[in-house]
């Protein structure tokens, strides 16, 4: 009877351990995912947005990237380390060509190869309208490296995967 009791306690502890581990793991993945939602929100643009709002929004992207931040696009033979301020200026400049931008991220595959590091594979979907009226759609597969610094997941590197090679 005593053995059965210990067995039930052991199984209970094991289940509790698994649940705790999975909750921790899921919450870390959710935290990572949330950073992409944050980035999308700051890059998106509504028609009629004023310059001050734009500058304030884009400046907040700096909160979720490391210094330096690396952009790698093998298809364009482009690879560069950039400082947060430089990136924010670049985003602001690109956004100014658009009257409207919608940015979404899909199909997250998140792995934690080591403590405080995450590898994220996802699809980026950007739809926008240029100031000239032309509609733009852009879909990319991205491989991202993230690092947790001071309790915050930050983007360390983005690689644009070459799905269609010209």
């Amino acid at each position, binding site marked *: 009877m005593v053995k059965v009791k210990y067995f039930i306690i052991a199984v209970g502890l094991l289940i509790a351990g698994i649940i705790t581990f999975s909750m921790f793991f899921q919450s870390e993945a959710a935290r990572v995912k949330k950073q992409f939602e944050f980035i999308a929100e700051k890059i998106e643009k509504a028609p009629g947005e004023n310059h001050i709002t734009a500058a304030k929004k884009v400046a907040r992207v700096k909160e979720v990237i490391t210094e330096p931040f690396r952009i790698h696009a093998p298809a364009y033979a482009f690879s560069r380390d950039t400082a947060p301020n430089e990136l924010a200026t670049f985003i602001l400049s690109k956004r100014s060509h658009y009257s409207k931008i919608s940015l979404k991220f899909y199909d997250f595959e998140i792995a934690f190869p080591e403590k405080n590091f995450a590898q994220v594979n996802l*699809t980026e979907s950007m739809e926008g309208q240029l100031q000239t009226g032309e509609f733009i759609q852009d879909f990319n597969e991205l491989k991202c490296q993230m690092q947790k610094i001071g309790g915050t997941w930050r983007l360390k590197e983005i690689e644009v995967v070459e799905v*269609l090679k010209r």
Partner: protein
Amino acid sequence: MSGGFNFCFRLRYILSKPERHDVIAIRLAGDKVILLKRVVALEGDVVEIQNGTLFVNEKKIDETYVRYPSDWNLSPRKVDKNHVYVIGDNRSVPIHIHQFGQASIDRIIGAPLW
């Protein structure tokens, strides 16, 4: 990809390979967002575009499915093994904006049903 919603027939290429002029579904990181593109050339073919006209192996291809003429130019290039060359039917946009090129067979998840 039109930003719309499409049904994909996943079994389409289980027993066969894509052929020229097929419209195929190409996955990105997953299958929530897919690219719908037309196969214009197969592995080993040489693709070229001259002032909007497609040439495959130096032969002019009559593309009745292209809605708007383009002025695109693309120097000749050979399609790699296990790849197909795909281009969208909407070529009214500048060539640098349009997503096209050779896709690995592994990325083809089927064909759109409608």
